Every structure is written in C-alpha cells, then in structure tokens.
C-alpha cells in the first residue's frame, strides 16, 4: 500500500480485482483491419452486450462481426454445437462471403469445453471457407491480448514458401532483395504501417510483409529463418508461435512508440541486418524539437498508469523521456522476456533523466491503486473508462487508456498524437484554471 519509489525497477504482482476490457474487443479493430474477414464471437448475451455497449460500434455499421449467441440449449448440450456452427457459418457465407471466418472463443466456450479447434477443420471443408480459431477469453487474457490470440492463430495460416510460379518469382528476386525477409506483426492502420515501412526503407531495409495484412488472402510468407519483429508490446504469444512453429527469428526491440522508441526499434532492426543506420539522430531530434510546445506542458508533471491495454511500459518510457515522472505502471500482464528491450530502455531513460524508477504492478488491485492515487496526487492518471469520471470529480486529471489503443501512436510521425492525448487534460485544466471547481464531490464522500 505504501507509495515509496526506489532506484531499480520493482515488479510486483498484486493479483487484485482490476478492470479492463474483455479480449474479444479486438474484433472491433481487427475486422476493420482485415477487410475480407468475418469475425464470429461464440459467447453469451454478456459478450454481445459488451461489444454493443462498451464499444458501441455494432449499431453504426454493417459490421463484419456477429455473435453466435449461446442459449440454454447450447449450454446444456441439448443442441449439437457442430450442427449449429455449420448452420451459422453457412449463413454468414451466404450473406457476406468473406475470405475467412475467425471464430472468437470466449470464457463460456472454455468452460463448457467446446471443441472449436476440432470442429473448425471439418466445417471449413464443408463450407469451403477458411476458419481461424482464436481463444480470446477473459480467463487467460486481458483486453489487447485478444489481438495476440488472433494473430497467433493466423501464423499457422501464413504460406510457407514463395509459390513456384517461376516468372513472378524471378522478377521479385531483384539484386536488392538479397536481404533476408522481414515480417512485421501487429495490426496498424495502413497509413501507419506504410510510415514504418518507409522509415525502414530509408535505411535500405525491405519489409516483406505484415501480419495481419489488409486482406486475409495477402498473409505474409513465413519461412524458416524469416526475421520477425513486433510493433506492439501485447503480442508475446504471436512472437512465441512464430519462433516455435515457423522457426522465425524474433528481433527483440523496444516498440516503435515515441521518437525514442521508434529510433531504438529501427536501430535494432538495422543491427540485425548489419546496416549502419543513417540520419537517425537527426530524425529523432527533429521530432523532439517539433514536440517542444507540448513538452513544456508535461515536463516535471507526474503520471500514474492504472493499467489496461499493455501499452503501459512503452508509453511510460516515452513520457519519462519527455520529462515526466511516472509513479506506478499498472499492467494486466507482464511478459518480461518479450518486453525485455523495452524495460531496459525504460531503466536507461530513468537514469538519463534522473527520475525515480516507477514501480510496475502486474494484475493491480484497482481499489488499492485509488488509495495510492489519493495519496500521491499525480498530475495525470491514465485509467480505464470506469474510473475516469469519479477521479475527475475528485480533482485528479485523467486520460482514458483505451484512447491510446485506438489512436495512431506508432512511428516518428505520430509521436505528437500521443502528447496531444496526454496534454489534453492539462490544457483543459489551464483553460478552467481560476474557476475553483476542482473537486465536484461533497466533502464526506470518499
């Protein structure tokens, strides 16, 4: 419960009651990213109501995702799962004809032990559309890790070899592409992906593909020895599957978030390909200079991450470099190996900037965190949606952590967007300063 900071990064696992979104929420962005896909969430009314309410997307589009809502007959095994799923998938195929149907397993399919992996290949043959099975359940995963489960499942579907169609093969083998193939994984809006492609191209590195691609039919080729590099910190399972199943070589770098992270990410990739990076120093400095107006607002300010989307370490590392003090980094799940380079950079920044190391709290307890926030009075709390309004009412400025999930934050170009979000409550405070309305709860309320 104490709020002491120390000289080294401290890890603790509170194993508390914390709030984050369900991992099935990944369908909300993945169906948009993979344009020819259809996502079928196999779960209960509780899952469906979550997608419709917390994300509020279903109503606004002709979505390419739906619920296979389990009813009492399904739970009590009076109905045959196989028949039911075949029926629904046939209907989806008829209505939308997607290139792939992604089944999203939920807590319920885990508990009733529905054999999704067993059924999928048979139904796939029957309807002649690929079916990918991802178990994005809340028993094992948090929020953004849903994407991890989907990408990990898609790894298996990536083609193994360049097709032997000799003509196209020869053409693609121009002298430049002697470089070993490099595949990046993590879903980004296509503009941001192009920006990262371009940054690497400037260093003479060709990105041979992305997982996921814009279309399911364009999944990247994975061969033994293909280099792979993640762009998001929540993809540790995908990384492991890439290494174990497809014998890919993982490049462990900090993530390309913030100018410091982007630079380190490019440098690390360059080092793997034995390339001396060009003009990176200048590029990074330029970006920092362009951020100066925002940096003036955040320098010396303190921030507390309650923990939600697993981007916390990368964001904290960037904000420390911006001159902020991070008290605590809550995070639902901490893979110290996959995030090793990120953690090392965080530690280095703390030393460089001469600020105390933050404490990293895995599976935090939200109640305890709120007590700590009250004690520490940070200038900003980055928090899940459930806690934002109550904290604001108590005079603590907040920013929703989900906004960082949905905003474009990767690469040099988008560093400004991160600070745009971070400084918004601070700029709001400047506008409202002098009104004297900082606390909007009655005195006796906790």
């Amino acid at each position, binding site marked *: 419960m104490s709020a002491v900071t120390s000289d080294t990064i401290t890890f603790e696992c509170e194993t508390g*009651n914390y709030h984050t979104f*369900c991992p099935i929420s990944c369908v909300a962005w993945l169906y948009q990213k993979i344009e020819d896909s259809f996502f079928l969430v196999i779960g*209960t009314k509780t899952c469906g109501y979550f997608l419709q309410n917390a994300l509020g997307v279903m109503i606004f589009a002709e979505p390419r995702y739906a619920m296979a*809502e389990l009813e009492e007959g399904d739970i009590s095994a009076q109905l045959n799962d196989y028949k039911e799923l075949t*029926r629904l998938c046939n209907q989806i195929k008829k209505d939308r004809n997607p290139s792939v149907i992604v089944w999203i397993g939920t*807590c319920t399919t885990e508990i009733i032990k529905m054999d999704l992996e067993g059924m999928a290949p048979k139904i796939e043959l029957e309807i002649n559309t690929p079916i990918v099975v991802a178990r994005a359940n*809340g028993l094992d995963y948090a929020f953004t890790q849903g994407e991890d489960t989907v990408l990990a499942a898609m790894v298996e579907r990536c083609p193994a070899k360049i097709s032997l169609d000799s003509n196209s093969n020869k053409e693609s083998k121009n002298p430049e592409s002697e470089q070993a193939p490099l595949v990046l994984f993590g879903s980004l809006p296509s503009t941001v992906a192009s920006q990262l492609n371009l940054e690497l191209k400037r260093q003479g590195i060709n990105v041979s593909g992305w997982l996921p691609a814009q279309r399911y039919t364009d999944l990247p080729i994975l061969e033994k020895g293909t280099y792979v590099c993640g762009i998001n910190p929540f993809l540790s399972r995908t990384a492991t599957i890439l290494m174990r199943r497809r014998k890919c070589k993982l490049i462990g770098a900090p993530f390309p978030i913030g100018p410091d992270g982007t630079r380190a990410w490019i440098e690390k990739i360059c080092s793997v390909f034995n390339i001396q990076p060009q003009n990176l120093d200048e590029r990074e400095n330029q970006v920092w200079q362009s951020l100066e107006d925002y940096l003036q607002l955040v320098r010396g300010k303190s921030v507390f991450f309650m923990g939600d989307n697993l981007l916390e370490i990368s964001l904290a590392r960037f904000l420390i470099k911006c001159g902020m003090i991070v008290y605590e980094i809550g995070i639902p799940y901490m893979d110290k190996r996959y995030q090793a380079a990120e953690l090392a950079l965080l530690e280095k920044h703390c030393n460089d900037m001469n600020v105390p190391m933050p404490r990293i709290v895995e599976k935090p307890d939200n109640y305890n965190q709120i007590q700590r926030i009250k004690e520490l009075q940070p200038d900003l709390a980055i928090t899940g949606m459930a806690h934002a*309004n109550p904290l604001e009412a108590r005079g603590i400025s907040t920013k929703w952590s989900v906004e960082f999930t949905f905003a474009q934050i990767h690469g040099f170009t988008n560093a400004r967007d991160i600070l745009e979000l971070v400084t918004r409550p601070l700029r709001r405070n400047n506008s409202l300063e002098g009104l004297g309305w900082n606390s909007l709860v009655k005195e006796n309320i906790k």
Partner: protein
Amino acid sequence: MKLAYWMYAGPAHIGTLRVASSFKNVHAIMHAPLGDDYFNVMRSMLERERDFTPVTASIVDRHVLARGSQNKVVDNITRKDKEERPDLIVLTPTCTSSILQEDLQNFVNRASMNSNSDVILADVNHYRVNELQAADRTLEQVVRFYIEKAKNNNDLDLIKTTKPSANIIGIFTLGFHNQHDCRELKRLLQDLGIQINEVIPEGGSVSNLKKLPKAWFNLVPYREVGLMTAIYLEKEFKMPYVSTTPMGVVDTGSCIKEIENIINSYTQDKISYDEYIDKQTRFVSQAAWFSRSIDCQNLTGKKAVVFGDATHAASMTRILSKEMGIYVICAGTYCTHDADWFKEQVQGYCDEVLITDNHTEVGDLIARVEPAAIFGTQMERHIGKRLNIPCGVISAPVHIQNFPLGYRPFLGYEGTNQIADLVYNSFTLGMEDHLLEIFGGHDTKEVITKGLSTDSELRWTSESENELRKIPGFVRGKIKRNTEKFARQNNVTEITVEIMYAAKEAMNA
C-alpha cells in the same frame, strides 16, 4: 445458437447490478471473468457518475477455476465489508460463471458469518431472463429480504402515515429518463397533497425498506421494473398499487383518478382531483392545446411506427393515436415476456402489433410500411437514418443522448409537453411539408450536388425548368437534387416535366 448483431435488452446480471448500485450504500460483487465487469463503464460513462460504481468484480481466471472460486469470492465479500461498510452486499454471477454451477448460496452463507453487512445472492436464471426481468426480480428479492428481516426482528412498522403517502417503485440507474421522471412524479404527488414515503431503488436506503408498508399505496410508473415488488407488497400487506403509467394527458388523468380512488378508500372525507386534472390538462400542460392547434391538425393521419419497451411503446401508441390523431400503422415491443399485456393495451389504436426482440424484423417492417416518422429506440433511430425516416427516441436501450443535463421528463404534465415537442419535431413541418409533398422527397442527408447544380450530364428541358422555377426558393434546391438523383438512378439524361413527376412519385412511394 443464434446469430445476433444487436440486442434490445442486456443480460440478466446487468439488471441485478442496476438495482444494487441504485440503492445507497449497497455493494455488488460480480463473480465473473475479466472483462465481464463493463457495467462499471456503462454506469460511469452514460450516467456521468461522479462516484465510483459500487460494483467489484471478483475475477475468475484459470487459477481460480483450478482451485475453486469459493475462497476468492468469500474473501472479496468480507474485504468489501471492511473497506466500504455497506449495508448490503449482493453477489451475482454472469452468464459465464453461472455455468460453473457452484453453490454460490453456500459462499454467501460463509461470507455472512464474517461480515457486518447483510449478504445475499441475486436469485436469477441467467439464461432464461433478460436485464429487465432480472431487475424486477432482484428488486423484489431485496425488498422481501428486508421485510422478512424486520418481521423476524419485530420492528416492522405497519402504521400508515397520518397524511396520504406513496412509495415510488422502479426508478433506477441507467433507466430511460428515470431521474427526470422521478422529479416530475414527486411534483405531481406533492400537487395532490401526497407525501413521498420512499423512492426505490434509486437513492433509497435498504434500512428504510421496512418502512415501505407505512405508505398508503405504491406507484409503479414502469411495468418492466417494480411490478413484482408491488404485487409482493399487496399480497403481504394488502397495499394497493397504481401501475397506470402517467404518460400523456389522458393516462396521467387516469393515473390520478386511480390514486383518488385509493385515497378515498382510506378516509371518510372524500377528495376529488377532477378540478386539478382539468386545470392541468387544459391550461397548465400545453399538450392538450397542442392537440387542438393547427400544427397538430396537419399531423392528422400521418403514418407512424412505434417500438420500444412495453411501457413506453404502449403509452406512446395511445398518445399518438388518441391525443394527436396520428395513424399508428404498427406498434411493437421487445418485451416478449409481456406480449399479452401489450397487445391488450394497444388494441384498437394500431393496425399491426409486432412482438419481437430481433431488430432486423423491426427494420424490415419499417422498410415495408414506410411511415412518415418512427418512435422507437436508438436502433430504430439508426434504421430511420438509413431509410431517411425521422425517428423520435422514446425508450431504452439507452444512449448517452438519453442522459441530457437539462430537464426532460416523459411522465406527468411536463412530460406531455416534452412528448408533444418530440412528436412535432420528428415530422417535417408546416408549409415545407406541403411543398415537399407536391414534389416529393424526404430530408436528404447526402448532398448529391451542392446548391443548384451547374455541372452535369443532366439537361433540363425548358418546360421542366419553368416548372422548377414555380417552386418556392427554400425547397427548390432540394426538389432539384431529388429529381436529379432520381434521373441518375434511372439513367435518364434529359429531365422533362414527366421525369419530375416520376421522381416525385418515386420519392413518395
């Protein structure tokens, strides 16, 4: 299995949590996997709640599954008991954890031994009832629990208040304009000289539930939630209740008359509210006057579709049909469990009745009958947007827009004004309507060409141009756009007067 894109009513645990978190100083423990606790987000964001939602998820993960949930749940209950000192802790599973078929009652029994708070398990079947039914049951369960407890402790106070008094049952968090309705009902009862005994669950205290029988009667404004409680109290204490929703001028009058009857059954000196009803109807509320006004006259016979929860859809159908002369082609509700009541209520006021919780059926119906306006939920508003039919939102499921900061009740006499405004603003208005009728066209959101188009492969003949010139300036642009849109759709390059009329017909059809 059911292929579902959207649903009108949420899962059962949401109903339970809405009731629990509406009471003061009651904490709910959800026994659920990570991510099932989005109720906290909904309440905090939609209601813009300043206080932390008093709901804690006791998280079920792999470890908990392997070891059994009992210790974790019991620990979390006793922990909240110490941290928050609530009067009552309500334990609820979700659809997911209810499959585990654990003996949650046993968890509750164990936790109660070490807690100062009362602890109960919300007794709801998560696969058989929806949000609204679960809310109704949970409210009844909580009330019953405290009445029984008071009976056992011998401190049940059955002496009626000296002045006429009422309990308002069924106002709760995330309800459709519930807070505004509550204020309006309090004002109405005050006007009638009736004291408010208790309002539950919103803002109510469980320790006051034993005082419920002191009231002369119960008022249940929405039949979805509160009716079970009222029936229980009637059985137990012969407390009469009024479940006529005071929505619209006529039903508000009937509701007040029912209250009058109940009060007169208690006293020798008979009272009459006739004068009050008459004054409110004819002079205070503007709705009755609106019905007579020339504006409303123009709405006569306009076609409308109504869809929503049973309470709001039935009341709205009657208001449109009886009080405004609007032609309700179809009235429907997603409260399938209340179908009989609903059919009886709207009988004679509409051509068709639709009972379904499938939004695509509602969409298809609207597309088929093409009403001039829809009165429905956020879903129908969305359907209306796609079909270019205006929609007034009259019922849950709620949206952030249904939590206006200003005062917008749907009940009582102020509610009648709000509804009249909503109805009037939902239809295209006044003279514009006439002109549109001549040349066709609904409000188009998409601008085909801005202003009077100059470009174009489309050629207007001199006759049709003359015809266009006759149309008053403020709708001319719209008529021109609609005609050109029609021409493009039909691969016509030369716009003759015939095409103009064909376009008008097509747009009206």
